[in-house]
């Protein structure tokens, strides 16, 4: 089995079609992308015992007692910790295991990711059966989160090596899958829960088992579809651009242990963190924001959200959900669009567009609210979301341009800690600023204005960080001797003989 997963076993034979690698990567990213859609389980899980209504825990029950309690239901805020754990462990595992991935190859990483993600679902199913929230946190949050990290970075370096002529497009295709995973997973989970629910069960346990099995098989298929190009492989009819052609694209290599010591790494860390913080903030509040800013206008009547009748609020909430769904479509479209465009524009210019256009659009959003223009408001956030997705999808190619392709997977893994940070920073900023505004007596409809200006300020930091990115200094590059040693360690010598 170990041999089957070894890096040297997956060197592609002559005539292999490189277009087989992106669907393999997509199979993994579409599976782990369900992390974004986990909120579909919160409501049914919050009445796992009561079935029709949640059984509320006694008010005097402490935190640890609630963790092990089997007689009362979990609160949605308690379940929501799983979401935080996903992104913390995604970033940390990508950072910790990135080097291991480069050494052992993408297939082994993909298989381990499948065991973690699929296994996490199974442990969570057991947690639902025994009604132990810690088993859900551990199963899906921690173990599943590690699967997310490994699965996310597993195809990056491989795709960049297969598509040296279109690095952005190649990684964009895979990372688009991560954005699209919830689009498949959420409706699938709803279908399965409806199928499995009975008068004594909300159907989540069986859904976890089924989805764990589906994702496990899909991810294994993806992992076994990975192939590495032979050393020095190039696409037919393509030669690398001349080294002096573009100083922002190096033909040399920076070791992962050196990369994080460079200012370029930390500038890109800030670029990713700021772009993601602003975007995550918007995603989290998109539906309530539209409802509160426009209220009754969304259904053609006057009045703020709080003044509407119950059925009118339900109509407005449906429109809010539609807005969130539309944003998710633009999020995935932006991943492939901007990443592909970056192959022509260059990465630095692409991020220049993200930040400069983003600053203008975030600053314009309160104006759209003030003039009560729903189409303008929706259009602004659709474009913002394309740039949020585009930021994720373009960064691996930016890293490969600056640091070379040898350790790009591991360097990308370390950079993803910026995502973990943004996952905390973005929502906290947005929620606290909104609450602070409301506490000061600002009407709900205007409480988002300051938030938008602060998110625009985050993009200003990102703008200057991107502007400061220059080619890596000579001293950080690997020497020929170091490169030869590294290749030996990475089993590439074995592949040459094979």
């Amino acid at each position: 089995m170990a041999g089957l997963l070894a890096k040297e076993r997956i060197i592609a034979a002559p005539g292999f079609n490189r277009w087989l690698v992106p669907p393999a990567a997509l199979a993994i990213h579409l599976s782990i992308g369900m992390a974004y859609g986990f909120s579909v389980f919160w409501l049914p899980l919050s009445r796992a015992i009561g079935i029709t209504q949640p059984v509320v825990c006694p008010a005097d029950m402490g935190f640890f007692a609630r963790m092990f309690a089997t007689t009362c239901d979990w609160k949605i805020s308690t379940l929501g910790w799983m979401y935080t754990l996903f992104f913390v462990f995604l970033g940390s595992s990508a950072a910790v295991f990135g080097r291991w991935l480069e050494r052992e190859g993408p297939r082994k990483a993909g298989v381990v990711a499948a065991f973690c993600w699929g296994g996490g679902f199974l442990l969570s199913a057991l947690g639902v059966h025994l009604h132990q929230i810690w088993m859900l946190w551990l199963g899906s949050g921690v173990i599943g989160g590690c699967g997310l990290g490994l699965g996310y970075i597993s195809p990056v370096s491989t795709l960049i090596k297969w598509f040296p002529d279109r690095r952005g497009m190649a990684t964009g295709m895979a990372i688009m899958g991560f954005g699209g995973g919830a689009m498949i997973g959420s409706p699938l989970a709803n279908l399965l829960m409806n199928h499995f629910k009975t008068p004594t069960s909300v159907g989540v346990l069986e859904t976890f088992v089924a989805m764990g099995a589906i994702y496990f098989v899909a991810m294994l298929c993806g992992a076994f579809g990975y192939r590495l190009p032979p050393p020095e492989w190039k696409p037919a009819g393509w030669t690398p651009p001349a080294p002096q052609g573009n100083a922002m694209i190096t033909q040399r290599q920076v070791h992962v242990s050196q990369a994080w010591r460079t200012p370029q790494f930390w500038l890109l860390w800030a670029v990713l963190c700021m772009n993601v913080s602003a975007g995550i903030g918007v995603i989290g509040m998109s539906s309530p924001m539209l409802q509160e800013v426009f209220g009754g206008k969304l259904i053609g009547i006057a009045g703020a959200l709080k003044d509407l009748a119950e059925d009118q609020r339900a109509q407005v909430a449906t429109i809010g959900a539609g807005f969130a769904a539309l944003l998710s479509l633009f999020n995935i479209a932006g991943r492939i669009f901007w990443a592909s465009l970056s192959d022509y524009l260059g990465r630095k210019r692409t991020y220049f567009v993200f930040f400069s256009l983003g600053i203008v659009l975030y600053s314009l959003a309160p104006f759209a609210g003030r003039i009560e223009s729903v189409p303008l408001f929706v259009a602004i956030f659709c474009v913002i979301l394309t740039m949020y997705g585009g930021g994720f999808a373009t960064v691996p190619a930016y890293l490969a341009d600056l640091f070379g392709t040898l350790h790009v997977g591991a360097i990308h893994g370390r950079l993803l800690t910026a995502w973990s940070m943004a996952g905390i920073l973005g929502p906290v900023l947005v929620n606290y600023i909104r609450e602070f505004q409301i506490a000061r007596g600002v009407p709900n409809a205007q409480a988002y204005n300051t938030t938008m200006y602060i998110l625009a300020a985050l993009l200003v930091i990102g703008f200057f960080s991107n502007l400061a990115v220059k080619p890596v200094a000579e001293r950080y590059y690997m020497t020929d001797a170091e490169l030869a040693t590294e290749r030996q360690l990475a089993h590439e010598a074995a592949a040459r003989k094979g």
Partner: protein
Amino acid sequence: MTTPVMNDASRPNPGSWALVAVAWILVGIPLAWGIYKTLQTAVVLFR
């Protein structure tokens, strides 16, 4: 800019394109279904 060179070892087998189509269909169908379901939810915004 790049200059074209002949590199036959890198050229994919002609028969491999059928496999490429199958692989893309396998990931494309669930993705298309997900996009369709999302569009169904999003369409209320335009009514």
